């Protein structure tokens, strides 16, 4: 990846993070922690990787994306808004009664959302279904999905892992946001789902491990996934929950909480500082 492009993506990811804080702050609820840890992945997919057209969200040949960790809509919506699917100002209506920006992804009402999700464990199966559909119909589009690490405690994830491998769904590329925290604490304390790499390998997947906050690594991994034939790929992304907001970083308590006025100011100041250092 070109240095200049890498820098551009960092600026965009910073914008996406500001959108996350704005959305959660105006909603007075939502999930900033996992949105911030996934912000670079959203940015990479929607601004670099995916073959999409924001002016034509239902374009039949587009790449598809399923947000299995559906609660991280602040990050998802912020990326979609900045990419041009809907106005960035609308992020401030997130979770409001009269807004189309539902708490969890709603494919019926939100431009750019390919699948409704939110109940953990189901999105990888849905993505596998879309991948199977593309295989049946000889379509060349690729299917991306993003799951959480705590989400891997859901048994259905492993049903999907078996299925995608069994039907050789090499058009499926799954990102796993490994931030190490879930609502009740560390994933290894709550119910240890690690190691993810050898588990997915044992299920027959191509496994790549990267830093969730390094566009170069994300790009190399996603390209490697495209050339891997006969197997689905999982890209395990080591991340920092709450990334770039000082008081949210590595704090499970910021999984699903909104900042107050003072915290909002601090968060925005933190993100400005990060921007200045790009």
């Amino acid at each position, binding site marked *: 990846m070109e240095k200049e492009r890498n820098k551009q993506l960092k600026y965009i990811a910073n914008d996406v993070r500001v959108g996350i804080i704005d959305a959660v702050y105006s909603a007075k609820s939502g999930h900033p922690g996992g949105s911030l840890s996934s912000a670079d992945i959203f940015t990479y997919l929607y601004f670099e990787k995916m073959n999409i057209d924001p002016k034509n969200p239902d374009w039949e040949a587009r790449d*598809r994306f*399923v947000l299995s960790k559906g609660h991280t809509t602040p990050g998802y919506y912020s990326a979609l808004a900045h990419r041009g699917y809907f106005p960035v100002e609308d992020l401030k209506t997130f979770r409001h009664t009269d807004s189309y920006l539902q708490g969890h992804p*709603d*494919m*019926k009402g939100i431009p750019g959302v*390919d*699948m*409704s*999700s*939110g*109940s953990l*464990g*189901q*999105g990888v*199966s*849905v*993505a*596998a*279904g*879309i*991948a*199977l*559909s*593309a295989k*049946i*119909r000889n379509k060349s589009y690729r299917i991306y999905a993003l799951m959480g690490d705590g989400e891997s405690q859901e*048994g*259905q994830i492993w*049903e*999907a892992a*078996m*299925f995608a491998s*069994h*039907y050789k769904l090499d058009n499926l590329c799954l990102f796993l946001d490994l931030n190490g925290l879930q609502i009740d604490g560390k994933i290894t304390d709550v119910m240890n789902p690690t190691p993810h790499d050898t588990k997915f390998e044992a299920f027959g997947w191509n496994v790549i491990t990267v830093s969730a906050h390094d566009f170069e690594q994300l790009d190399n991994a996603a390209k490697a996934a495209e050339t891997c034939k006969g197997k689905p790929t999982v890209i395990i992304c080591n991340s920092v929950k709450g990334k770039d907001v000082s008081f949210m970083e590595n704090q499970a308590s910021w999984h699903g909480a909104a900042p107050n006025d003072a915290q909002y100011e601090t968060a925005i100041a933190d993100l400005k500082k990060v921007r200045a250092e790009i």
Partner: protein
Amino acid sequence: MADKIATREAYGNALAEFGGIYDIVVLDADLAAATKTEVFKKKYPERFFDCGIAENNMFSVAAGLAATGVIPFASTFAMFAAGRSFEQIRNSIGYPHLNVKIGATHAGITVGEDGATHQCNEDIATMRTIPGMIIINPADAVEARLAVEAAIKHSGPVYMRFGRLAIPVLFDSDYKFEIGKGVQMTEGTDVTIIATGLEVEQALIAKELLKADGISAAVINMHTIKPIDEAIIINAAKTTGAIVTAEEHSIIGGLGSAVCEVVSEACPVPVLRVGVNDTFGKSGPAKDLLEVFGLTAPHIAEKAKAAVALKK
């Protein structure tokens, strides 16, 4: 009444038949031999995908297929569809109103010897709570075949309920089927029996039993539980003044409840329910179980007399 055929047989045959006309895909969860999707599998192996014993994944995969324009039929036993995978069906299929067809076999107590764990008497109740879900419970093989075709033509999720037990064929080949339209099988003046699934045959027998006692009973086949045919129910309430419902399902949440909801709001008259009486099933030959759980014609006739007695 010709040969007896289980509605699951008709389901498998219909998938194979309509698979040649419509571009459908069939999923199963290691029960193809029992759900009869194997008939389709043999004919169109490239459009059949076994998901193994992992129903939750299967229904979510079906959602993904439907999200990209494929029409999937996802099949397993009613217990594992409407029971185990209720939430996948609710959130991944129902909420986005995706075009998934659910073929749920082995519904009700006529599963027989396998017993309570496999006898699903709750599926209509759970599926009925999902906005936009269509629920069809065919009364015979002819209706089951037509239900499959209607489901393909309908845009949106459809739950079809099929049985394991071979039952008589009630309808001719020119029988017309329309989703949401109850069928007035016979006219009557004293009471209406509204039945669904294999209870339609029992209702027709009950009508004859009642005739011997001087009671004139109308019989309605309510093949679609959702959306329920309100007009035919209200007409029954107005013209006969008493209703008995009959279903191979819990008396809680199924046809009986759906009819009560309509009658109590639009035209209150006595409604008595025949069904599995808030109890689990048990092992035994299906025929015996229908008797044990009070689902045969004499039980319906008794309820009908009680309903008539309640009329003011």
